[in-house]
């Protein structure tokens, strides 16, 4: 499901520094416990729904969030991270499709 970045992925995403040290390959083996499709959602619904999904889950479970715009793909992981959850990866799978994998804290 998660593929490497295309040639046109924004520079910053390719930049490992901005990843907080997470390696791309880390999550390739991860199996999501839950998946939420927010491809056509915009803020604040993206964050609200992700947050609610995480609240329903148990510690250690993995949530895969599908997002359809770059702001959400940037803001959701940051907000989720600051909530204390662990963001495993952010992947751009298609020009307008990001997959965020989070481990519930």
């Amino acid at each position, binding site marked *: 499901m998660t593929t490497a970045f*295309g040639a*046109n*992925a*924004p520079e*910053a*995403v390719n*930049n490992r520094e*901005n*990843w*907080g040290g997470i390696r791309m390959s880390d999550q390739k083996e991860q199996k999501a*416990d*839950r*998946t*939420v*499709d927010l*491809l*056509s*959602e*915009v*803020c*604040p*619904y993206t*964050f*609200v*729904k992700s947050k*609610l*999904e995480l*609240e*329903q889950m148990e510690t250690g479970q993995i949530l895969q969030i599908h997002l*359809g*715009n*770059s*702001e959400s*793909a*940037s*803001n959701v*992981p*940051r*907000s989720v*991270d*600051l*909530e204390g959850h662990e*963001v495993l990866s*952010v992947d751009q799978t298609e*020009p*307008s499709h*990001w997959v965020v994998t989070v481990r519930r804290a």
Partner: protein
Amino acid sequence: MIVAGGISLGLLLGYALQRGGYCMNTAFRSFYLEKDRSLVRAWAVVLLINVIGVALLTELGVLLPEVAPFFWPAAIVGGFVFGIGMVLAGGCASGTYYRCGRGMLGSIAALVGFVIGTALIDGGALVEIQQQLRGTTIDVSGREATLFNLLGLESTAARWLLIAGISIPAIVWLSRAPKQRFLIGWGWRKTGAAVGVLALATWVISAMQGRDFGLSFTQPTVALTRFLVTGDSAGISVASFIVIGVPIGAFLAAKAAGEAILRMPDPGRFVRQFGGGATMGLGASIAGGCNIGHSITGVSTLGITAITSTAFIMLGCWVMTGIVYRSERRKMEAEIAAMRSAVPQGETS
């Protein structure tokens, strides 16, 4: 030349907004729901550049900023209504414009709603509401309603002291920012600097046209609509050309990042975004400005109306986000309850 300058500025602004994901809806909301302050910091950088820049340009005699009279009922009601609309529309006035350029059809619905909302108030059927709410103004020693005049600061030195008093704590706060992680596009420093410089440039090229105001989206939208519908070019200024340039610039930025794609939300969300846009339009027309006209340009002049309006845009945003949050939680709880009573299964999709 000014037309070319305006469109160029719009292109660059649209590009910066898209690359920076500069959404003031997110910035305002983050105080209430989230711990991430990146976009608040971007906004603070924009204000820092503009408060200092506008004061400097005023001192040099290049411009004399136009400041809204303190019609507090309109600022409060309009700001609150705008804040509510912004959440439903999934983006502020500027956010809606640049997302249109990216091909988000929901934002195009919101923009159409915004245009209709503003048209209903400005010279439209609901103009009475605006007039009633703007009927009461508070006199700030008979001068423009700005913090400078409120505090009775007549001398140049006193004015700069106030600016320093505001800027220095902001700079200290910004310098203590943690590293911004999970970045796509530009970080808050670059975004804030780019939007800030372009907002200040708007003051400058507007001054060349005798318009003593900075970046705005509401009035130029109204003027542009009126021009397209009736051919009346009154009110068309450099700001209208900027507004034209923004979606184009955003499209180019999105195209470069491979993000430009036509995307249709489901019908419910489409209608919701349209309604949100219309609500934003009503609010902006009542308050005399949106998240740009008030929260960037107006605040840059330390205008009291703009500051009040911004506070109530935030409040409206928080209230509506709270409502959305609660209703989504209820929906999810109901779903889970329904699922448990049917086949027990751990996953939804």
